[in-house]
């Protein structure tokens, strides 16, 4: 069967994550939640450690801790704390506690690098089902709330006047973020999840005239980065997750240059 090939499974896993990350990443960029994504992803390492200690599957553990972190940050963000400091404290202490917790697990031999930077070439058929299931859930969730999310992102009072509760929409994004982090941890690892959220969306910005256009373009750039990145990793024998992020970053440079040239010609 074609899924028996590890490269095929890796490519499909990368594309699945890219498709979920594109619409979510667009909102992360529009709402300036980049650090929020980082904090959630770093917390997932703690979830991984807890899952291994309890000898259960990594996905629900990572998802639960990511969700708790995302909800905590979300709840605190409305209360006038200095957000960047608070996120810095939460994100890095969650990561540190996670790493320390992993070191206590003497019985099991864990390749920590696999969770920090991903291990996309080791994706099993079961993992693939979880990744595509999670990605479908995220896309469905955001697609369902799309107009309401967009209105709440533009202006909270306008959202209220249209009968939309911005806090509920924030909760939808928070949930989508936790799911994405949990499914992406195997593909790019906790340290690079935010990159997969933000870079394709940012690279799509100069090419888009509508929010939908930006999300679709980001999905295309993300999927292409997964394809090209994996191929490059195979050819040059480089780590797979970081190679995918490198390709996305090159796309960002290319579209930014195009936008810069276009602006230069207009001026």
């Amino acid at each position, binding site marked *: 069967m074609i899924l028996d090939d590890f490269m095929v499974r890796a490519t499909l896993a990368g594309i699945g994550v890219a498709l979920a990350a594109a619409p979510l990443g667009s909102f992360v960029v529009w709402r300036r939640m980049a650090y929020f994504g980082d904090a959630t992803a770093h917390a997932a390492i703690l979830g991984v450690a807890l899952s291994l200690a309890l000898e259960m599957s990594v996905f629900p553990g990572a998802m639960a801790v990511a969700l708790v972190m995302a909800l905590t940050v979300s709840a605190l963000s409305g209360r006038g704390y200095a957000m960047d400091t608070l996120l810095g404290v939460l994100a890095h202490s969650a990561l540190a506690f996670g790493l320390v917790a992993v070191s206590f697990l003497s019985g099991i031999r864990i390749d920590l690098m696999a969770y920090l930077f991903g291990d996309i070439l080791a994706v099993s058929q079961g993992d693939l089902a979880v990744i595509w299931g999670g990605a479908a859930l995220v896309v469905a969730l955001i697609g369902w709330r799309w107009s309401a999310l967009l209105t709440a992102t533009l202006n909270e009072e306008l959202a209220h006047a249209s009968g939309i509760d911005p806090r509920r929409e924030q909760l939808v994004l928070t949930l989508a973020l936790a799911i994405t982090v949990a499914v992406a941890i195997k593909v790019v690892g906790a340290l690079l999840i935010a990159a997969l959220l933000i870079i394709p969306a940012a690279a799509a910005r100069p090419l888009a005239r509508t929010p939908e*256009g930006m999300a679709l373009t980001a999905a295309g750039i993300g999927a292409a980065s997964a394809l090209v990145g994996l191929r490059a990793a195979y050819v040059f024998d480089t780590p797979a997750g970081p190679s995918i992020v490198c390709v996305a970053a090159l796309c960002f440079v290319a579209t930014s240059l195009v936008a810069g040239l276009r602006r230069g010609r207009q001026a």
Partner: protein
Amino acid sequence: MTLLTVENLHVRYGATEVLRDVALTVEKGEIVTIVGPNGSGKTTLLRAIVGSVRPASGRITRAPDLVPGYVPQRLHVDPTLPITVERFLRLPGGASRATIAAALARAGVPDLGPRQLADLSGGQTQRVLLARALVAKPTLLLLDEPTAGLDQPGSAAFYRLIDEVRRETGCAVLMISHELHVVMAASDRVICLNGHVCCHGTPEHVSTAPEYRALFGTGTGGALALYRHDHDHSHGPGDPHGHGHSHSHDHGHSHGHDHKATEAAE
């Protein structure tokens, strides 16, 4: 017929009571303006009516046929968010192309549909926000200092536009304004707010009320007379003399006095 009734409204932010025992009504088709110094709770009151601020106590009753159209003070569009004016007007309800075109035309910006929202000037943004409020065919327009970022001719044109919309559609208008001379000329009723309702009534009544004069000084009475004078001579707002006087927005000063000072400088 009463569209909106607010009774015994109290709003707190933490330990601070921003609004206490506020009551007001808006009747069908009338223009009611809220004036008050900075920090007097004007925006909070409008937000409580829109539903984005939860009152500590009190009651807000909406008539069954009340359709709100809200125009915020300003709209900050993050430059990373690409969205055309037309798409913005279709949020979130999905209005038809014809409705959107009509709303843009009514707001005096028929050609802005395909433009990017983030690229608009302050005056264009205010008109687009008004157009968006009109899409829902509102029976009550709620405006939070809609001309805060506009220059004098721009804001005069905007108030004229609102008056036209009111006359055409018969909608009521509840707005916050800093521009006292416009308020006094264009409103059916004025509510003077400073944490509570200091005084309310017709512009003539409010501008002579001692509570109002304590907040804004006596000069505003002069500003009213001045405006009426301009009006009698039918100066258009585009006319350099018509609305050429400046406003410091400092309510400790009298506007009449300001006016003389600028005129002397000219």
